[in-house]
């Protein structure tokens, strides 16, 4: 730019045009800069700070006596962390797969040009409008053996019916899956429905003319073309699963015992209520590493695929 401006003036107009061009080039960067700066500072800056804290023996307040990776060693020796990490794998895996399967099936059924589709779609989509706290409280009541489903079925005369997962430390983690799937599968359905609608009808007709059966049309034509939808759904569901904190707090409070602890609740408890900021930061960094380990390869393969095809 300096060469342009200081070049021998060959006329006012040319100068002005170059100025306009200059502004045109710089303006978008100027507009983006503040939000970029904010993101850099508040997201990446704090990630870095958390990482630094995880290398210290900070207790109640941050302090900077560096102890290397001692907090990570303590974290992996911690029984409760193992429970939390295992729970995330169980909960996250089941949650994502169930939501995708249920969402896809609902979308395919709704896509059969049925009557009252709008009303049905709204009904399935509505749970997503609720806060996870509300979902948690409602399901806590439903799953409470003395109040909810078990009490109701027993009231119908099936005295031996038991459905006490909420109070069973081995099964409680699945109650989180039930509530979370109930909440999110309608949303996944909406995404898939949009994807299905974008598939050209002529594809169906052509396939049908070629004698393909309906299941074959879905598995060979429809599903592959829904790949970008699956991609977005997995992204959204994965981040819901990893940040699940409110649902655990409302539904089980991490209990019975700490049977339904997730890394997010572990991190919160240790950092903020137990005065172990160092250990809590180490667990936060491990969560980040877990997310990166899953998302980076997935992003890479998906985005590369897009560039090629």
């Amino acid at each position, binding site marked *: 730019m300096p060469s342009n401006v200081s070049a021998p003036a060959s006329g006012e107009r040319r100068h002005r045009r170059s100025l306009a061009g200059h502004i045109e080039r710089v303006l978008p960067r100027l507009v983006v800069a503040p939000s970029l700066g904010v993101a850099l500072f508040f997201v990446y800056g704090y990630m870095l700070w958390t990482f630094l804290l995880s290398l210290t023996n900070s*207790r109640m307040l941050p302090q900077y006596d560096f102890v290397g990776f001692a907090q990570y060693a303590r974290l992996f020796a911690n029984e409760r962390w193992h429970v939390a990490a295992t729970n995330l794998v169980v909960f996250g895996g089941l949650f994502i797969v169930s939501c995708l399967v249920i969402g896809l099936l609902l979308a395919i059924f709704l896509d059969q040009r049925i009557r009252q589709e709008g009303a049905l779609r709204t009904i399935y989509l509505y749970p997503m409008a609720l806060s996870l706290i509300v979902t948690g409280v409602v399901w*806590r009541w439903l799953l409470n053996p*003395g109040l909810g489903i078990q009490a109701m079925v027993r009231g119908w005369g099936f005295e031996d019916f038991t459905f006490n997962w909420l109070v069973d430390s081995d099964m409680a983690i699945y109650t989180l899956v039930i509530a979370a799937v109930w909440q999110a599968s309608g949303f996944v359905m909406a995404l898939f429905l949009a994807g299905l609608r974008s598939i050209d009808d002529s594809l169906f007709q052509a396939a049908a003319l070629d004698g393909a059966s309906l299941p074959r049309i879905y598995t060979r034509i429809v599903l592959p073309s829904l790949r970008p939808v699956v991609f977005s759904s997995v992204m959204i569901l994965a981040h819901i699963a990893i940040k699940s904190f409110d649902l655990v707090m409302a539904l*089980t409070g991490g*209990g019975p*015992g700490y*049977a339904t602890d997730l890394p997010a609740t572990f991190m919160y408890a240790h950092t903020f*209520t*137990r005065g*172990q900021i160092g250990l809590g930061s180490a667990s936060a960094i491990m969560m980040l590493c877990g997310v990166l380990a899953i998302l980076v390869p997935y992003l890479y393969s998906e985005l590369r695929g897009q560039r090629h095809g």
Partner: protein
Amino acid sequence: MKTIHALAAGALLAAAVGQANAAEIEVLHWWTSGGEAKAANLLKEKLEAKGHTWKDFAVAGGAGDSAMTVLKSRAISGNPPAVAQIKGPLIKEWGDMGFLGNIDKAAEADGWDDFLPQEIVAADKVDGHYAAVPVNIHRINWIWANPEVLEDSGVDHVPQTWDEFFDAADKIREAGYIPLAHGGQPWQDATVFEVVMMGIGGGDFYRKAFVDLDPEALTSDTMIKSLKTFKKLRGTMDENIAGRDWNIATSMVINGKAAMQIMGDWAKGEFTAAGMTPGEDYECVAPPMTESMFSYNTDSLAMFDVDDEGKQQAQLDLASIVLSKDFQVQFNQAKGSIPVRLDVSLDDFDACAKASREAFDVAMDEGGLVPSLAHGMAVSDSQQGAVFDVITNFFNDPDMKAETASERLVSAVRAAE
């Protein structure tokens, strides 16, 4: 025009004079439920009568967990409130980090050392100086019982040994009631466990195990026996304890669904709110084998280091109001606890508070006065959390052996150091 100037100058002067010894102080506390809020409001009125301004900073929830989180963030940002409700060993931690001030002046002027129990105020001192003022004493080891349910089940008194307790529990169960009301939250599990353990082990054992966290005590036979008794209590509760709040459990006793609850004396507030009279409509009795013991939980107001002289004065005034006799009576009647001043007469208090004071005196003489671990009076936050984890996991896992739990206690406590 001149008069207006003079008036304005006069007003300014008056304001300046007023500011020299009166100030606004911000008070962080978690006295937010019915009786507690009333008690906090009383303190506010008395402080404002002295010309200071009380800036209320109430943070509800989680037995102070949320309040502590807020306090930490305020302290990190360099803007802590002047006064904050802090408990037990945490006061010393804040003091060691250099956040707390010194209120020895108020202590000397009012002669605190003459009427405060030394075991309890030790937690309010940092390096021998008062940094906090104790407000009250709660007793943790209580059984709250519904006499009608007991009678209906053919149990003529609240059990005094654990064998008796389990026999009574069978009878109560047969009569169609829940023997022990409980809420399955870690702190409630720990409350019941510490009460069981102090009964079986006694004061010295309790201090070794839960104050010093001595590995030998934590793996001793006494500890194993306590853990086994604790686990057996699971069978005397109903199935739906998961996540239940303590006051819901109390209401089960009030409504006659359950016979008893083990809980600190704040439970009294629920009975009072239901219009019940102690000794008639409900009973407060020491849990098995803890009659001469007193597990205490004390609220304290810690004074943060402030530069402003007016604020310092307000802190001193607040401290001396807190320990004034009439405030001690009014506050503790509203909160269900007993006065921390030993020279306050309990004539106007209910039967349970009087019994609490008697137990306190006996426990002090016989070495049965112990700080409650479940309520943050005995060990640091991180160690308390580690103990909670093991206790609550043991209680909820039908397959875990008492021996395994006691070993885990040792390793968890060591890891949290």
